[in-house]
């Protein structure tokens, strides 16, 4: 039998896969850089086009888009003070002041190299930690998966939104959407309203494109008049002496990034903010004051957010629990290609894991190459007005949704989700938990029912197992803590 680790080099040696990874990374860098386009949106739309593709080709492309997109967001954060992605929010704090000082080229160059280092650390940790976590996850019972899924949805809701209760609402809404159709165990209709069309359920890609693509496009209509800011950019490859100076900080913050990224529900945005905070507290003699163009304030978030990519893959591949909205979309992609992320993935298809690690590493290298080249093209693309982008996003969303099942009803659903998602966004409800709910809802339902059937439908025993089994007890405690920590009483106490 062929050694699964040999799949690590597959994307490096196969010219077609090499090209796919390069194309994905290139697209990711530019998608991430264009304000109004997000990586989640791009991956959601892309998934629908890769239905008939070979799994490796689809993965190579999407891995590239993810890696490139996380980095790409930093460029507009530096040049325009508009983070292209949530993970680049912290980058803007010192990146934009650097650009205002006329050091945009150096800032982009340093951000690129530090993103590369961060990505490298994240991938190495993924390669080393995932097999261990997967082994441990084999001990998980259905109730533990139920608890993990609830924790994931709550974390995404509480950390990224205005309030926990809005996150909870969004997550539950997603669970209900995920339940539409025939029950997989009894074939009984759920929320079908006796319609044959509804019996097949609502495809999660339809919901993803609606909530991320259409809702975001509609929200962008508010910013049509925003003027395009032009920046001068010359040499961006940084000097080795500059890079060398920041390597220790980059490695330190990369570990913060990978750790935060590995927690279910926390992605690159939280990782970058925590790394920025770490740099602010630990760097005694910054190049300038933080917030006024300190290179350290750029190095820390850029290393951390790319390291978080490798980290986010750990719970996704080993537990089947997405770390954030982008990894939730990725889980959807894996399901489409007949793969089931979780502890069995490492046993049944270890080659897929090593292929993903190899493709991530390759995408990281391409990110460095594309990041340090093509400045002129980049400036042209970033200046693309929203009035052109919005209609194009909508057409691509329609094409992507129709491609799922060649059914125009999906397109109507997508538009419905898009308009509803627009109102959710505008009133401060995060749409990330909705997608997590859509994907995790059916899994939570099946795991809950397995768990309750294993106790012979005795609800008391079910609850007792939640606190007597060590893993379940730990997860239950984490869940309770998560809810309590969001109460006004707790928040007041911690402030005091």
């Amino acid at each position, binding site marked *: 039998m062929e050694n699964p680790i040999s799949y690590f080099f597959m994307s490096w040696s196969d010219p077609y896969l090499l090209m796919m990874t390069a194309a994905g990374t290139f697209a990711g860098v530019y998608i991430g850089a264009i304000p109004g386009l997000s990586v989640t949106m791009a991956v959601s739309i892309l998934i629908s*086009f890769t239905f*008939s593709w070979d799994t490796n080709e689809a993965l190579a492309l999407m891995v590239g888009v993810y890696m490139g997109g996380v980095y790409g967001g930093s460029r507009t954060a530096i040049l325009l003070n508009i983070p292209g992605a949530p993970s680049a929010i912290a980058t803007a704090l010192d990146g934009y002041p650097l650009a205002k000082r006329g050091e945009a080229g150096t800032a982009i160059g340093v951000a690129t190299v530090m993103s590369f280092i961060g990505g490298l650390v994240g991938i190495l940790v993924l390669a080393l930690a995932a097999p261990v976590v997967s082994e441990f996850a084999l001990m998980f019972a259905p109730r533990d998966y139920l608890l993990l899924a609830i924790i994931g949805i709550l974390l995404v809701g509480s950390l990224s939104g*205005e*309030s926990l*209760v*809005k996150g*909870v*609402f969004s997550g*539950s*809404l997603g*669970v*209900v959407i995920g*339940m539409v159709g025939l*029950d997989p*165990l009894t074939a*009984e*209709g*759920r*929320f079908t*309203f006796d319609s044959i069309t509804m019996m097949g359920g609502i495809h999660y890609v339809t919901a993803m494109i609606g909530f991320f693509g*259409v809702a975001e496009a*509609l929200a962008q*209509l*508010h910013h*049509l008049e925003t003027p395009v800011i032009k920046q001068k950019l010359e040499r961006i490859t940084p000097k080795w002496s500059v890079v060398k100076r920041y390597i220790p900080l980059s490695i330190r913050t990369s570990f913060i990034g990978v750790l935060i990224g590995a927690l279910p529900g926390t992605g690159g945005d939280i990782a970058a903010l925590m790394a920025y905070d770490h740099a602010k507290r630990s760097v005694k003699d910054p190049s300038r004051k933080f917030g006024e163009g300190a290179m350290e304030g750029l190095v820390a978030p850029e290393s951390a957010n790319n390291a978080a990519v490798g980290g986010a893959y750990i719970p996704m591949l080993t537990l089947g629990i997405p770390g954030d909205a982008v990894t939730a979309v990725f889980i959807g992609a894996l399901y489409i290609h007949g793969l089931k992320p979780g502890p069995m993935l490492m046993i049944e298809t270890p080659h897929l894991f090593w292929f993903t690690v190899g493709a991530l590493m390759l995408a990281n290298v391409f990110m460095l190459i594309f990041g340090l080249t093509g400045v002129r093209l980049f400036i042209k693309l970033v200046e693309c*007005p929203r*009035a*052109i982008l*919005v*209609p*194009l996003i*909508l*057409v*691509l969303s*329609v*094409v992507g949704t*129709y*491609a799922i099942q*060649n059914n*125009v009803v999906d*397109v*109507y659903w997508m*538009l419905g989700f898009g*308009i509803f998602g627009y*109102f959710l966004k*505008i*009133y*401060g409800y995060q749409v990330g938990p909705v997608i997590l*709910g859509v994907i995790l*809802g059916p899994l*939570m*339902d099946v795991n*809950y*029912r397995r768990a*309750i*059937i294993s106790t012979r*439908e005795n*609800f008391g025993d*079910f609850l007792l197992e939640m606190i007597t089994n060590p893993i379940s007890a730990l997860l239950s405690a984490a869940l309770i803590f998560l809810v309590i920590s969001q109460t*006004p009483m707790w928040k007041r106490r911690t402030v005091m």
Partner: protein
Amino acid sequence: MNEHKRLRPGEASFGYVLLIFSLFLLYHAFAISGFSSFSSPGVFPMVAASVMVVSALTIILKNRTAPKEETTTFSHRLQLFHIQILPLKPMVIYIAMVIGFMIVLEPFGFIPSALIFLFVSFWYLYTKGAVFALVLSVGSVAVVYALFRLVFKVVLPEMEWLDLDTLAWEI
């Protein structure tokens, strides 16, 4: 993370809409299998819908304690809603255009409907003239069609009343 910030126009009403929607879903979740057993197909939908109801109620209660707008007349609030949340131009008009695009998608097919939609969109949103909008829309549809239909082999809606394949066969 400020829980007591001022509400956006229409935010309080949106909370009530969510509550009604959640109650509707709870009713239908109960209709699946009632309380027949702990493992019945309706249990989890009922739990999810109940959580939605409780969350919506909590949101409504929180909204009631949030600082109110200085002007409380209904017409002024409606005006603010139209300016900040759902302006007629471009939001409502554009949403109507998108709905129109989706309605004509199947009977007209992808190429004509996308072409018209993009042309009208660019003309309306970008305001650089009809010729520019036409060139841009033709170029965009050509790229999208070539990339997705010819390279990715994605099936796109075709005209219902004009079967190109049959026509080609007859000729």
